[in-house]
């Protein structure tokens, strides 16, 4: 089933500037799992938020707000859309939360936010996730794209809309910091 779907998909070279809706849907379905895991990484492993971000990204793509112009592979472009949507959503959430705290919550009132819904990981994966969450957003994103989604650093730079040099720096520093965090976790 998956093989026949892949055969039906147009290759990047064949893709013209205007993709039909059915072609876009087919490509979205093919990359759905990858997209979801990338959305999960973009929102610090918040399961509910990842679903919302993915849905908003699909809406953007399907209603034509985000258009694929074949300047990169479809997956790279799709990841870029998801990342931009995640950044906007997270920013809105932070502003809204700050505003609500300023207006409606007294300073001496204890604030106990509910922890975000998360997946149940195995012990090793949880260790990795905790270490990743301690890295900066960009370092975490570059490592996720390279090791998790098997992208090159060039592709990661395209997704994140940063220069290749910056991506390389984030990659090197991220790897170093992650090694330290994992070592700390092992010592604990």
């Amino acid at each position, binding site marked *: 089933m998956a093989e026949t779907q892949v055969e039906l998909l147009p290759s990047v070279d064949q893709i013209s500037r205007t993709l039909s809706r059915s072609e876009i849907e087919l490509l*979205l379905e093919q990359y759905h799992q990858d997209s979801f895991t990338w959305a999960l990484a973009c929102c610090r492993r918040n399961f509910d938020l990842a679903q919302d971000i993915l*849905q908003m990204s699909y*809406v953007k793509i399907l209603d034509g707000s985000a258009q694929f112009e074949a300047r990169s592979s479809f997956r790279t472009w799709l990841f870029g859309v998801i990342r931009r949507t995640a950044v906007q959503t997270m920013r809105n959430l932070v502003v809204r939360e700050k505003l609500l705290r300023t207006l409606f919550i007294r300073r001496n009132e204890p604030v106990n936010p509910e922890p975000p819904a998360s997946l149940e990981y195995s012990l*090793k*994966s949880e260790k990795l996730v905790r270490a990743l969450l301690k890295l900066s957003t960009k370092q975490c994103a570059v490592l*996720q794209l390279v090791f*998790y989604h098997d992208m090159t650093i060039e592709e990661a730079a395209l997704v994140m809309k940063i220069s290749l040099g910056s991506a390389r720096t984030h990659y090197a520093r991220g790897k170093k910091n992650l090694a330290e965090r994992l070592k700390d976790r092992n010592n604990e």
Partner: protein
Amino acid sequence: MNKLFEDKLASDFSRLRDEERQAAPSYRNISRASSGSLPRRGVWRPASLALVVSVILITAIILMSPISFERTDDFASNQGDDFLDLETMLVKEMPTDFLLETLWYQLADMSPEISTPEFNYDVPLYEYPEDQSHEL
């Protein structure tokens, strides 16, 4: 060491990927929700169009209507000098005058006018001695 760490990292990420992929919601669920939220934009378009059309219609009705909307200062100047005649204005009965026809108002009307008392204080005049300091 670096290569070893990279290999370990790759296997850890691969495990994480498998776990997260298993938890991913199906494409149908999310795309159905996405297509369900698509008409939202479609609803706003006719609504905004209707708003613009109604504003244009109201403006047209106001401009084309036979009732002339004159400015208050034009209106005052067109009435002539008689309009501001104080005597005429005083003679005219206001439609709210009946509100004043109360017992208290009548009593107040009947009471004699109290005149302001005249106070004639005689201020004593003192004679101040002449200043002769300049002569010293």
